[in-house]
Each structure stands twice: as structure tokens, then as C-alpha cells.
């Protein structure tokens, strides 16, 4: 039992790193554009399929393939923002953009079904199947590599946001769009690039998800987005650190419940979310009423 708990905690932390990466993209998009990109789940699946196509047809290594899939997902993200999110105006903009993202998700799901069919696929590589003996139990290499990459990506995002000029304009836009515009920030460009970055991380998240989830198909997007939404709300919308903490917390809780009931393990996500919000409506790291509204 003690051993199982120990394993579950390690699993949870390593898995949490991957979810954290996907959730950071989502919370970043929320912070800047004030919309929930409900297509993030299916975009992760799209990223996974891109890696799959590259490795199966062109025999490109999963990690090397990221050099192609990350820019590709960035372009897709910018295109979605430009075509479907930007034109929305008026009082109902927030809910409209949510619906637009939902419709985009539906289209991507249909395209993936047409291209790849409903059969489950897995990403294969030597480091997915072979394990390393660590702290007394076996762990597939991919978890370690994946976790390291997730940490590196989050660190890179952090540096981008807090140490560059572009990052400063992103944070300014997150704080107050009108004021940012007044001091000369091109808010439209910031929004498009942020959306692109938020989607680009799904290429990395998707690759890792495809290699560690034990199989995915175009329908996997629903499960993913529901978890990601739970994570960013729990962490407090727009809070990057909150998303990281919530991701690790959620996956660990899920792995622990999984020991006694795999069926109900997934529900933990939502039950935790509901419980936390009952006590703290702004989420664990929320910024109080201004954001919580």
C-alpha cells in the first residue's frame, strides 16, 4: 500500500508536468484575450496526430518532430485567432468566442476522424517502451524526458513573459487592455501571438500525451479539455503559477484515487474543482473579484 501511494505520487507529479504545460497555454490565452479556448483539448490531440504522422510516415523521432509540429501549431493558433476570434465584437463577445472555439473544435475533430478514423493509436519510440530503474521502481524514460521538457517549456514561457519586451506587453495587455493600447502596444498583434504560443505548447503536450496515455483517438479531446478547464479554474483563471500547482495537485489526487477505484478516479478532478470553488470562488490562486467575475 505504502509503495502504491509512493508510486501514485511520482506518477502524479510527472504526469502533472505534462498537464501543466497544456494548461499554461490555456490560462495564458485567457489572461490576454479574456476567452476560454475550448478547442485546446482537440488541439492537443491534433498535436499528437501530427507527431504520429511524422513518426509513422517520415520516421522522424518524436522529439525531433517537435521542431516541425511546434511552429505548425503556432501558425494554426494564429490562424484560428485571426479568422474566428478576432471578428467577434459586442456585449456577448466572451460567450460568442467560446462557441466559436467549440465549433472550431468540432471541425478539427471531424477532420481528424476523416484522416485517421476512430481507432486508437499510440506514439511509439524506444524510450516509450523501455524503462529506467529509479527509486526502487520502473519508470518509462518518456515520463522523465517529458517532464524535463515540460519544465523547460514552462521555464521558457516564464522567461518570455517576464524577461522580454514582448512579455512585458503581454502582461500589460493582461492587466488592462485599454491602457496597454494607450501606451502604444499593438494589442491585436499581442493577442494573435499569444494565442499562437498558447496553441504551440499543445504540440509538445500532445506528443507527450500521445506517448503516455496508452492510446488516443479524435474523441480524446473532450476528456482532455474537461481536465484542463478544471485545472485552470482551480488554479485561478489567468494565473500561470496556479495552473502549474493545480495540474500537479489534480493528477496526483487522480493517481491516488486510482489505487482503489479506477472508474471514479477521473471524477476526482471535478469533485475537487467543485469543492474548492465552494470555499474559494476565485480558485486557489485567483486574483480576487476583478478576475473572478
Amino acid at each position, binding site marked *: 500500500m505504502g509503495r502504491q501511494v509512493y508510486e501514485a505520487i511520482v506518477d502524479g507529479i510527472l504526469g502533472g508536468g505534462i498537464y501543466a504545460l497544456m494548461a499554461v497555454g490555456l490560462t495564458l490565452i485567457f489572461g490576454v484575450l479574456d476567452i476560454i479556448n475550448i478547442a485546446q483539448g482537440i488541439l492537443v490531440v491534433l498535436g499528437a496526430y501530427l507527431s504520429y504522422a511524422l513518426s509513422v510516415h517520415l520516421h522522424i523521432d518524436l522529439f525531433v518532430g517537435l521542431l516541425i509540429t511546434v511552429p505548425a501549431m503556432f501558425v494554426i493558433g494564429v490562424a484560428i485567432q485571426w479568422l474566428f476570434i478576432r471578428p467577434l465584437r459586442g456585449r456577448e463577445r466572451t460567450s460568442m468566442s467560446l462557441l466559436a472555439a467549440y465549433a472550431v473544435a468540432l*471541425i478539427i475533430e471531424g477532420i481528424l476522424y476523416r484522416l485517421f478514423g476512430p481507432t486508437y493509436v499510440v506514439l511509439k519510440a524506444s524510450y516509450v517502451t523501455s524503462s529506467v530503474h529509479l527509486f526502487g521502481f520502473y519508470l518509462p524514460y518518456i515520463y522523465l524526458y517529458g517532464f524535463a521538457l515540460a519544465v523547460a517549456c514552462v521555464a521558457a514561457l516564464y522567461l518570455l513573459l517576464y524577461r522580454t519586451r514582448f512579455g512585458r506587453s503581454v502582461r500589460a495587455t493582461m492587466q488592462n487592455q485599454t491602457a496597454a493600447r494607450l501606451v502604444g502596444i499593438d494589442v491585436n498583434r499581442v493577442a494573435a501571438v499569444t494565442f499562437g504560443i498558447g496553441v504551440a505548447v499543445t504540440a509538445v503536450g500532445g506528443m507527450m500525451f500521445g506517448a503516455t496515455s496508452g492510446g488516443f483517438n479524435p474523441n480524446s479531446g473532450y476528456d482532455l479539455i474537461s481536465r484542463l*478547464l478544471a485545472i485552470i479554474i482551480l488554479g485561478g483563471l489567468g494565473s500561470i503559477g496556479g495552473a502549474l500547482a493545480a495540474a500537479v495537485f489534480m493528477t496526483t489526487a487522480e493517481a491516488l484515487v486510482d489505487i482503489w477505484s479506477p472508474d471514479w478516479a477521473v471524477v476526482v478532478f*471535478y469533485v475537487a474543482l467543485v469543492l474548492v470553488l465552494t470555499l474559494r470562488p476565485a480558485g486557489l490562486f485567483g486574483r480576487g473579484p476583478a478576475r473572478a467575475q
Partner: protein
Amino acid sequence: MTDRAWRPAGALAFLVVLAVFPQVFTNATVSTIAVDTLIFAAAAVAWNIFSGYTGYISLGHAVFFGAGAYTVGIAARAWHTNGDAVFVLLVPAAAVAGGLAVPLGLIALRVRRHTFVVITIAFFFIAQLTATNLSVTGGSSGILAPSPNWEAATFNDPFYYVALGLLVLVTAGSWLIRRSRFGLQLRAIRDDEDRAAGLGVRTMPVKLTAFVISAVVTGVAGGLWFFFIGQAIPQFAFDPLFDLSVVVMAFFGGLGTISGPVLGALVIEPAQQWLTLQYSNEYLSEILLGALFLLVIIGLPRGVIPTAAELVAKFRARRQAVPGAAAGDMAAGAAAGAADGDADGEEARAAREAAREAGR
């Protein structure tokens, strides 16, 4: 105004058309789509009573739809209900959906905007997972409806008329609520909740009441749908597409209007059904459906009814404002009056501006 006299007559004529529809079109495919459309229309009007009037966008109404479906299924199995008597089970379906809405509403209505939307999505996934994991709901293989014993030729008719009855009731309810003090409170919450609270609206009970009313009707719609389709499995009773469809229907017609959701359902549900029939194996229906939704959202952001009302108001204002500048005020009043029926403050304001311009 002629407008006022015209409206009930139009509604009555429309109702007559709906009432004779299954007598004229007896084709089974057509009447199946018609029943589906009426059920969705009722669900869209119900969704609009809560989300349209309060501005709290719920993406989790499938919870109540599915709860209604499973309630009818479980009750029919437990009490060995058959034939017409199954329709009586819509009463427990309503009760269960309404009962479920109270705790869910108490939790979700504490937060606003995005957080509220996401919480409703979370409820949706909890409901779907629960239905999959419990034995009383039949797990992933779901639950079967008792097969009705009525004649094959007019098989869809009982469903059609019950669905039509539900639609008429909920639309009348929506109209009454919109005219009432309660409806005014709901729309005050939509425009500015804090100010509404400051002016003495007890926001929580008001929001919760609307949420429960909306859930009750959605539950009845779900129960009816289950009896009609004949089976409920977790993915279809709690269908993410249901959430999206109902919202897009309301948006298409006009959020917060009375006839908007009905119009939206009449256009979108048949289109959706037709696409599914046409392309279901190719997954093309999903792509086309998404494209249709995008078209509605980007092309008609405010919905058909408010846009049309505004156009009519502008047109009238222009005609009446011809004599000169002095007529401007009068035209403004008339335009505002014309816009105020189904459309909202915003439209009325737009119309007034249009009238002012015309008067110049």
C-alpha cells in the same frame, strides 16, 4: 401599434401550421426530424429563460436533459410502465431535473462569466461519468425505453403533439416571465449584477429560480426524447453536442428574445439532422455542422430577431422622419417603441440613434 395586433395573430397562425404539420407530411423521416426539432426548440427556449435572460451562459444543460432521460427510463423499468402511461413519467423527470438544479445552482451561481461556464461543463462531465459508472443507469450500455404499442403509420404523432404541447407551454412561460417583475430582475442581473443587487434584487434566489425552471423543462424534454429515441446511453443522453446546439440555436434567433430560440431550433435542428443523415459515415457532418455554427456565430452575432427588429425600426424611422427636423423626436419615440417588443434596450438605443440621424 399595428405591430402589437399583428404579433398574436402571427403566433396563432404559426401554431396552426405546427398543429396540422404531421397531417400533411406523413413521411416517417420528416416527422422524426419534426419531433426532434420540437424537443430541441423546447430545450432552447428553456435554456434561454435562464441563460438568455440572466447572461449566465450554461454549457451544462445536458445534465438536466440526461437526468430527465434516465429518470423516465429507470421509472418505466421499475414500475413496468407501458404505452401512453410513459408520458406520465415526464412528471418525475421534471422533479428530478429540478431537484438536481437546486444544489448545482447553489454551487455554480456563486461564480460568474467564464468560471460559471466551466463549472457547468464540469457538472456535465461528472454527470456523464456517473451515468457510465453506476449500475442503476446500465453503465455504458445504457437503458432501453419501453416500446410504445401504437400504430406504425401514425407512430410519431403522439410524440409530436406532446412535444408541441411542451413547446407551447414553455414559450408561453418565457413570454410571461419576460413581461413580469421576475423577468425584469433577471435582465437587470444580466446588465449589471452588482447594481441590481444594490437596487434590492435578491440575486441568488432570482437566478436560482430561473435556473430551476429552465432545468425542469429541459428534463421533460430529455425524458420525451428518451421515450422517442428508445434508448439512453451516457454519450448521447449527456451529449456535449446538445449543450452546443441549444446555445447556438438561441444565439441564432437572438439571445434573450422570446421567439429567437424557437426560430433557431427550426432552422438548425433540421439542418443538423439532415447533415447527420446525409454524411454520418464520413464524419463530414461534423465538419459541416461546425462550419454552420461558425457561420451563425460570426455572421449573425446578435441573432436574427434583434437584427430584423432593428432594420424594421430604422426603416420606419426614415419614413416617418421625412417632413423635417421637428419630426425627429416623434420618429425616435416610434422607433424605440417598435424595437422594444422582442429586442432589447441596446436595440432600442440603436433605433433611437438611427431615428435621430434620419431626423437631421
